[in-house]
């Protein structure tokens, strides 16, 4: 217990929680809408609660729900979720320098909670890929906030599915939260260009199945980033369609 309260009081834990709380509101709106969507897909309240608590991955939940509802083979559901989650595989390579020195059990436990927002916020706080004191505490502060900001509204959405007005477009608050995060990452021309390329690629490749357009967009932005870093002239930026 004393370990827990020491963690709770740790300044980096507090800081991690604080850095996540601004975005938390948008995440909460998104969690609420996801909770409602789970019940409305016909999954039922108990299974929806179970899914929200153990899967803890909004995008793969939303992608697999219609498949489960349609009675698709289980392996199809799993393959879909895996593809939707491919970006996490890319992120996990980035986590390695920070958490590689920890025992495997801890690495797995931390890994399970590395949602998109934790990744972005953590990498902004610790841009140098090496272990530093306070990282685990900072990470856990963000995880606790992120988990609560997602699960509490998601459960509320599941339980109150019929009372939540979905036509208000509340879920868009989640998109706006991500938008604010993107803006805070745009520091120079390179990052603007990488974002523009990723946005256009995601729209151009939208017709791909299994949300693979996200993987295509990451690959395109990384490729362009590498080209710029090598001092080669990048391809000219395209029209305004990709403006967020």
């Amino acid at each position, binding site marked *: 217990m004393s370990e827990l309260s020491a963690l709770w009081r740790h300044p980096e834990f507090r800081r991690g929680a604080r850095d996540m709380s601004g*975005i938390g509101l*948008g995440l909460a709106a998104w969690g609420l809408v996801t909770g409602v969507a789970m019940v409305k897909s016909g999954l039922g309240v108990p299974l929806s609660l*179970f899914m929200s608590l*153990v899967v*803890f*991955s909004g995008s*793969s*939940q939303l992608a*697999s729900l219609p498949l489960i509802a349609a*009675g698709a083979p*289980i392996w199809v559901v*799993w393959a879909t*979720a895996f593809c939707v*989650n491919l*970006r*996490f595989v*890319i992120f*996990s*390579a*980035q986590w*390695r320098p920070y958490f*590689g020195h920890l025992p495997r059990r801890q*690495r797995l436990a931390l*890994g*399970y909670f*590395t949602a*998109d927002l934790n990744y972005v916020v953590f990498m902004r706080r610790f841009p140098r*890929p090496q272990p530093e004191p306070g990282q685990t505490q900072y990470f856990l502060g963000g995880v606790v906030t992120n988990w609560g900001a997602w699960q509490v509204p998601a459960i509320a959405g599941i339980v109150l599915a019929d009372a939540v007005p979905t036509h*208000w*477009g509340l879920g*868009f*608050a989640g998109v*706006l*939260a*991500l*938008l604010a995060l*993107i*803006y*805070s*990452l*745009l520091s120079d021309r390179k*990052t603007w260009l*990488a*974002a523009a*390329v*990723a*946005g256009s*690629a995601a*729209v151009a490749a*939208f017709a791909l199945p299994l949300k693979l*357009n*996200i993987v295509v*967009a*990451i690959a395109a*932005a*990384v490729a362009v*980033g590498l080209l710029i*870093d090598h001092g080669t002239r990048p391809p000219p930026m395209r029209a305004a*369609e990709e403006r*967020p």
Partner: protein
Amino acid sequence: MTAWEAVLTICGLALITLLTRAFFLIPEREVPLPGWLQKGLRYAPLAALTAVVVPEVVLTQGHLIATWQDARLFAVSVSTAYFFWRRDILGTILTGTATMLALRLGLGW
């Protein structure tokens, strides 16, 4: 799908969450990635976020939106203006969501 099949499916999905998020954290020895790739992956978080957001804003059912009477465009414009004015994430979410609600509920967009 029976209830038990659904439980099995959901347990598998939880395992997939763990497997994908911890992927390169699983092996005991570091899987060597070439230096150029590690450098390039710095752009991955920004790219992933942008790839999620942009289609949500400019596409409807997989097609580019054809009308300017779309609450999302105005919500994004207001949010964008607010962010570059104040650099504050919470305010960015609130102003955009307020715009969204006003247009959806007030004008029925």
